[in-house]
């Protein structure tokens, strides 16, 4: 009986510690973002946008069966304010007529260009260039995975910086300038990540974002808060502690030489972005390599990505993320608690393992223990109720902190109506959605242990997402 009680106490301590660390990370992230904002001079972005020394960027857009949205994505990328960039769309064996759609919209013609195959990838079947847009190249290749498509795109990239963007992503016009800023300021910059937010409620006009509305469903709004909490504020804090071990695949700007040196993302990874980020950290933070490079988070470089709004797609995505996290942790287990990697090894990796990789299992254990304790009479109903309420209120508190930080930044909600919808969503998050998320992750953990490595369901695109004006 005492054992169960001790376990409940340990889990309670785990919960409190998790929330405390997240709170510290968010406060650290907020301070870091504030310092970042204060350090930007009045004409800085204008100068970067006009300067001849701004490094040109190759934007790589891997896509698989994205015919309904790829045109919108490219039109959005063409609106970027940046002195010199090229867009390389890699169709990864699409079967839905993606190439035809691109041909109709941008007037493609086939060219003889192969580039240098710096990283192995599946066969490139054809390369097309646009008759209308001089900096648009479309690559048609045999089906691999997202990582394989990116690696194929690198062969045709001509510029020293690579920006990998998902096909469902939309960028603000100044996103690339903001991402490139760290490279111009500090030659030690290896890669830059930015803020990722849900795109589901955006309103577009000819590829330009004209209104920032919230997603329509509770699940969508819930992810808006989750992205703000975990992918934004906590991640800035983690980057300060050299522990940013997951840069979203939705958007990353990286030096091409380093990308090639790392061999690109691993095509067999369940989540190639997490695995790649860990390997990137491993490379640059290994003291033996004496690289003195850094990963930077640009808190004002915003990328919008489509989030799942149906339970089925959401479950599939979270299941995949969980399996991908465990796979990446296992592949890079040598970094955990290894002083050779400095803070990354001593804090970042254990944090990621205990509070990300194993969080679902711990939480499920907590639920089981509570039920057992109740049945065996070790804990009273009141104790169980208060435990659940504590977990609920800690989540609400953390989400409110994220909302506070967001409201003091440029990413604040567009209207009072949206603001109150966010508050309502965070209040009901822990009354079902969080538990569903937990279930998806537990299933993902079990399936990972049983060897499941596929990518699950892909998002079913609708032409109406994001909303046209």
């Amino acid at each position: 009986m005492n054992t169960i009680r001790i376990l409940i106490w340990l889990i309670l301590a785990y919960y409190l510690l998790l929330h405390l660390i997240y709170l510290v990370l968010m406060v650290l992230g907020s301070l870091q973002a504030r310092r970042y904002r204060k350090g930007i001079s009045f004409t800085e972005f204008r100068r970067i946008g006009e300067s001849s020394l701004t490094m040109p960027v190759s934007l790589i857009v891997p896509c698989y069966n994205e015919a309904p949205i790829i045109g919108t994505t490219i039109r959005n990328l063409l609106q970027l304010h940046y002195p010199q960039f090229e867009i390389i769309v890699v169709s990864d064996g699409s079967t839905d007529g993606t190439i035809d759609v691109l041909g109709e919209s941008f007037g493609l013609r086939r060219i003889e260009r192969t580039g240098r195959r710096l990283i192995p990838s599946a066969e490139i079947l054809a390369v097309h260039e646009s008759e209308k847009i001089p900096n648009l190249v479309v690559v048609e290749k045999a089906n691999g995975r997202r990582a394989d498509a990116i690696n194929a795109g690198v062969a045709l990239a001509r510029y020293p910086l690579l920006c990998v963007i998902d096909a469902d992503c939309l960028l603000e016009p100044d996103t690339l300038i903001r991402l490139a800023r760290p490279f111009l300021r500090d030659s030690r910059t290896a890669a830059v990540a930015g803020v990722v937010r849900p795109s589901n409620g955006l309103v577009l006009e000819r590829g330009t974002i004209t209104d920032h509305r919230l997603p329509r469903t509770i699940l969508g709004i819930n992810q808006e808060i989750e992205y703000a909490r975990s992918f934004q504020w906590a991640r800035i804090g983690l980057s300060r502690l050299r522990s940013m071990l997951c840069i979203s695949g939705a958007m990353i700007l990286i030096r091409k030489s380093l990308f090639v040196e790392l061999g690109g993302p691993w095509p067999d990874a369940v989540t190639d972005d997490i695995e790649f980020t860990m390997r990137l950290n491993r490379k640059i933070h290994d003291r033996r390599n004496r690289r003195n490079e850094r990963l930077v988070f640009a808190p004002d470089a915003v990328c919008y990505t489509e989030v799942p709004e149906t339970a089925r797609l959401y479950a599939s995505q979270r299941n995949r993320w969980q399996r991908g996290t465990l796979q990446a942790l296992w592949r890079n287990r040598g970094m955990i608690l290894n002083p050779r990697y400095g803070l990354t090894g001593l804090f970042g990796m254990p944090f990621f393992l205990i509070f990300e990789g194993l969080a679902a299992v711990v939480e499920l254990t907590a639920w089981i223990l509570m039920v057992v304790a109740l049945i065996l009479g070790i804990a009273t109903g009141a104790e169980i109720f208060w435990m659940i309420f504590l977990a609920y209120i800690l989540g609400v508190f953390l989400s409110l902190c994220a909302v506070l930080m967001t409201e003091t930044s440029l990413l604040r909600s567009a209207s009072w109506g949206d603001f109150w919808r966010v508050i309502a969503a965070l209040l009901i998050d822990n009354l079902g959605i969080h538990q569903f998320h937990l279930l998806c992750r537990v299933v993902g953990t079990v399936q990972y242990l049983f060897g499941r490595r596929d990518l699950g369901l892909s998002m079913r695109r609708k032409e109406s997402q994001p909303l046209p004006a």
Partner: protein
Amino acid sequence: MFLAILTMHLLPFVQVTATTFTVLSLLLLAGVVIVRADYSRRITEQTEFRKKAIPHLCAYLEGKEGREAVLGILGRKRLPALDLLMDQSEEMDPEARKKLAPLYSGLSYTQGILRDLQSRYWPRRLRAAERLGYLGEESAIPPLMRALGDDILDVRLAAALSLARLGCGGALIPIIRSLDLPGEISQRRIAEILSMLGEEAAEPLLKVLHDRTLGPAALCIAIRTSTLLKLRRAAPAIESLLDHTDEDIRINAIRALGSLGEPSCISKITALAEDTSWAVRNAVMDALGRLNDHASIPMLTEALGDPEWWVRYHAGIALWQLGDPGIQALQKASTHHVDAYGRDMGRQILQQNGILNTTEVPA
């Protein structure tokens, strides 16, 4: 003791913690609402202010409205007005910007900004250093010169930019001394700022190029700035740096002379074709192509067999740039060069430019 704590009843601890966080959450929610309301109010006020002020400012710049009338509007919100004026200034050419000077002086920003420049808080010093550049007042120059000694690089850069904006040619040498940073990007960034000085920079630049006490980074910045300004007067001084012991200086000097198109330097540049550094040899090939010197053809042809790919490539490109005589040399090299790599590079360059039918060339 630890075990005793673990086995004690949960309820009191959980109740206290949960209640505390409930109260904190309610306070936080109230705080978020207040912060949002305040933020919204400020943004609305600023938007309204801009809506009102911009037509008056435009009318003033067109000469349809007097200074006092505009000052009356702008004076209601001095800091947003300063941002507005700086925004406006960025859209105007340097001559037209002078029209804004009476507005800056009328709103008496200088003293406040100079105080900010002494602040212990570096973002405030940064803001002050960049704002001073817009005021167009000569009195800002001495404090900006002092700011070039700031510990924070961003403040030094902002001060340099402001001095350049004020057209202070005398600041060139102090700027170079305070920002002689290693690394190509840093140097190009500073050269870009200094080039804003235009003709004002010429004499100080010549002094820098002759000053052998300065470090390699400072000399590289001076060479780059001369190139950006197309300062042909600087060519003799740059030429004298071709035999400098520092590799970066030699490379920058060669590139600069190639860009400036100074034919008198060709022999000295050609002499560096035997340099031990491949990057220097590469710069030589590139420069000779730009200088359009037909006498270099034998040397460029020989360089097609250089051990380094980039040197061979740029030698080939240089020959191509020389027109018919260079193309003939490439055609000859593609079949008769003593070095197999030289023959291959000749073929590659011709093929790249659609001159040669490669099937007719023996392997």
